[in-house]
């Protein structure tokens, strides 16, 4: 019953390659800092000092210097340059870049192995969530009682924006990053991604973007909410430039990753792996990737035009120069709403997978599940102006956008049908992933219903811009997506580490987070209903009690996340050994050894049925 796969690694002395053999994250940082410094020095000295836009131009060029230097330093450009001068990489080079025989060192390198990239994404997601979480704690501490002064008001306003953006970035990659990379290629029966080097590029470009985002905090002054819409951006100092550049760089990362995922699934599936035999998780990964390819170009466009406005005094978004802030708002939300489903769909797909394996039953109505995800993705590109109901832009479009928005509840409802149908009459294995999945179900229904209120214009005219909205999308992102992401982590963690995530710690973390979410965001709904606007640094006494509760709940969530983080770190080397197929599942990632060998399969498997027949346990022959 065990797999016959054993990776026999030929021991290779890595000869040649010179300096390129010593590149890692540290040389990347050195390269980035050097690049930033060179760009700063040159631009600072060459640009005229008396122009209003000079400091912005210097900031943008410095940021570009950072990212190019970082790419150079970590080795992202080695292969393209080698190719340019006529030296293609040898097989030996390729294996080197895939991290062969480099132990844990390869996790710090520009590594092309999709499993290494997956692990790097796990760490990256946790770092981003941790940084965003610390800011959330600062925000909630400021708001614990009326008139509190935990942080300076200007600093607080900056935290609001960077907390939002860090969390959005973290959740965009939270499922698609780790598991879209680690398990999806194996699920398809592929030896790696279609473009392994682009895979490494997407990860390290994200790291570069995160560096720019943290620079924004360091230089202060991004006091305008994460949406950063004109004209208030005109009042921002250079933090805004780093922010815009961070987003531009980030969209490069997601575009590269999305193309790679789609190409992998459509070109690298093993023999017999028809589209309908794909594990449902793979569908989630490609649908989200395709939606990202539609949505994120708007994001780059917004930020590119914004940078032009700031550095070259163009006026795309500046009213008195012939532009309009509404243009920016439209472009932003053309990205902003699909992005929510880029975040949500992989988490939902992972839960379908988990529900099937844990209930020991096939996914209920597989085609409905796929149709639901496709339907959601399709509708999501037609709803953006519901974010603009109260701006005064095109009031006559209110009705049509209300219609498209409320239609969203139909595919969303199908998700519940598939999840409940899959669990119905199963033999449900109550392990950590299952527990978090039930948490998702409980929270996602609240997220969905409160979304329906906001899609209705007479209600939105009252609740737009209030804490009600904040509570609604936190039920989506924390209560639903984060719970799904943690379920996925608990589910595939044994495949990465060969060990279980500790059940006890995991459950403590679950209850802290689950109760914390209810306390935090139910009380936040009430603040909003009572009339408290969002992004307030201070509030009047009528909102006192609910805000106190919200802060206490937020501390509980943080405590839960710290317990989870401790479990993730501790169990990595000390958890209970799991074997290669702890859930007795039949999709390919469970049939290869743990950890999976470089290039996953010695002999590519041939697929004859989908992985949801739990009557028998499959093995690789």
């Amino acid at each position: 019953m065990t797999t016959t796969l054993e990776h026999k690694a030929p021991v290779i002395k890595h000869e040649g390659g010179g300096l390129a053999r010593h590149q890692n994250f540290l040389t990347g940082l050195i390269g980035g800092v050097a690049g930033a410094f060179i760009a700063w020095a040159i631009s600072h000295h060459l640009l005229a000092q008396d122009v209003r836009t000079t400091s912005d131009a210097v900031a943008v060029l410095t940021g570009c210097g950072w990212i190019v230097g970082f790419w150079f330093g970590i080795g992202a450009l080695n292969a393209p340059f080698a190719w340019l001068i006529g030296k293609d990489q040898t097989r030996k080079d390729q294996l080197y870049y895939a991290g062969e025989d480099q132990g844990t060192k390869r996790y710090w390198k520009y590594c092309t192995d999709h499993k290494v990239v997956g692990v790097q994404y796990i760490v990256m997601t946790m770092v981003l969530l941790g940084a965003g979480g610390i800011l959330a704690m600062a925000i909630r501490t400021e708001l614990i009682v009326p008139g509190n002064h935990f942080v300076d008001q200007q600093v607080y306003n900056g935290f609001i924006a960077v907390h939002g953006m860090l969390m959005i970035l973290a959740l965009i990659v939270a499922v698609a990053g780790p598991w879209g990379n680690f398990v999806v290629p194996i699920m398809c029966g592929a030896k790696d991604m279609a473009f392994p080097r682009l895979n490494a590029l997407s990860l390290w470009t994200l790291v570069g973007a995160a560096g720019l985002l943290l620079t924004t905090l360091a230089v202060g002054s991004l006091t305008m909410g994460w949406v950063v819409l004109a004209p208030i951006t005109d009042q921002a100092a250079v933090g805004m430039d780093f922010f815009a550049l961070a987003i531009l760089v980030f969209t490069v990362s997601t575009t590269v990753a999305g193309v790679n995922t789609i190409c992998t699934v459509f070109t690298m599936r093993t023999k017999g792996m028809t589209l309908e035999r794909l594990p449902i998780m793979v569908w989630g990964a490609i649908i989200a990737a395709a939606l990202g390819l539609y949505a994120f170009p708007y994001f780059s466009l917004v930020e590119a035009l914004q940078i032009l406005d700031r550095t070259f005094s163009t006026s795309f978004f500046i009213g008195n120069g012939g532009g309009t802030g509404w243009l920016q708002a439209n472009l932003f939300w053309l990205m902003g709403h699909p992005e929510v489903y880029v975040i949500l769909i992989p988490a939902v797909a992972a839960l379908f997978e988990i529900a099937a394996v844990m209930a020991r039953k096939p996914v209920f109505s597989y085609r409905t599940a796929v149709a639901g995800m496709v339907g959601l993705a399709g509708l999501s590109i037609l709803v953006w102006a519901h974010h603009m109901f109260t701006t005064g832009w095109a009031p006559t479009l209110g009705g049509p956008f209300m219609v498209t928005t409320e239609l969203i509840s139909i595919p969303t409802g199908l998700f519940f049908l598939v999840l409940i149908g899959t669990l119905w009459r199963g033999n449900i294995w109550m392990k950590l992933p299952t527990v978090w999945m039930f948490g998702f179900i409980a929270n996602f229904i609240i997220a969905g219903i409160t979304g329906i209120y906001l899609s209705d214009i007479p209600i939105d005219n009252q609740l737009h811009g209030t804490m009600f909205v904040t509570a609604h999308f936190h039920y989506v992102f924390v209560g639903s997506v984060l719970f799904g992401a943690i379920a996925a982590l608990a589910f595939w963690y044994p495949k990465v580490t060969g060990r279980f995530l500790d059940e006890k710690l995991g459950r403590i973390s679950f209850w802290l987070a689950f109760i914390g979410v209810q306390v935090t965001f139910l009380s936040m709904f009430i603040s909003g209903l009572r009339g408290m606007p969002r992004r307030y640094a201070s509030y009047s006494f009528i909102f006192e009690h609910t805000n106190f509760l919200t802060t206490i709940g937020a501390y509980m969530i943080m405590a839960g996340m710290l317990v989870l983080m401790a479990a993730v770190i501790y169990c990595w080397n000390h958890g209970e050994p799991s074997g290669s197929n702890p859930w007795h599942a039949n999709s390919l990632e469970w049939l290869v050894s743990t950890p999976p060998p470089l290039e996953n399969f010695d002999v590519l498997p041939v697929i004859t049925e989908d992985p949801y027949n739990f009557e028998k346990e499959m093995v690789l022959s």
Partner: protein
Amino acid sequence: MTNSNENKKSLKSFYWLWAILTVLGVAASLYAPGYLMPKSMSQSMHLSILTMVVFSVAAAPVAAGVYAAALYILRNWTHKGDTVPAAGPAFRESGKVVITWTLTSILLTVFLLIWGLGALAADGAGSTSNPLVVKVVGQQWVWSFEYQGANGTTIMSNDLYVPKGREVLFHVTSLDVTHGFWLPQMGIQVDANNDTTTDLRVTPNKLGTFDVRCTQFCGLNHAFMVTQGHVLTPSAFTTWLNAQPARS
């Protein structure tokens, strides 16, 4: 190994649970919006609260159904013991269930749409040809209001005064960044933009004071960009207006 009857249980307790949760949900839906939201001082706000109630009542059985199903599943179908659970019944499709579920959600959505579009139309209807025009100017971080006085003079105020029973037409604009002009007790808001003017209409139907708050993040003192509004009787309003010094 398994047959299709395995794990079939009586659904009676599920239906009971669903019914009880629905009743609780409906009760909360009828009560909570009116209790939690600001006191209504206009038809628009009344409509907002009423729509909250209607949508909550419509959503209650759906949420109750999902919670009842989840609890019922946890109660009946969790695997006990440390062994690997045996395979469950391998049903994959049920056309009946999928169609029923989808049709129900379509019907519910259509109901919400008809109600919502109706409420939207009702909200916009009833505009009079002779509203009181108030110009609203937002700037970091204060609101100011301009009225047309006698003989074409302009009257300015930092508090908002409106008469009861007469439609008010706000022309909303900004001197700097975007602000959000929100009257929580009136159930209306619109952005104040610096490059254009947006309109907002409301007919106050109760005497008393109300709040004016900013809902668009507008910089350092966003949280303090608040002022008071007052609904006066028409004669008191005229008295107030005539007592104001005209702006030179």
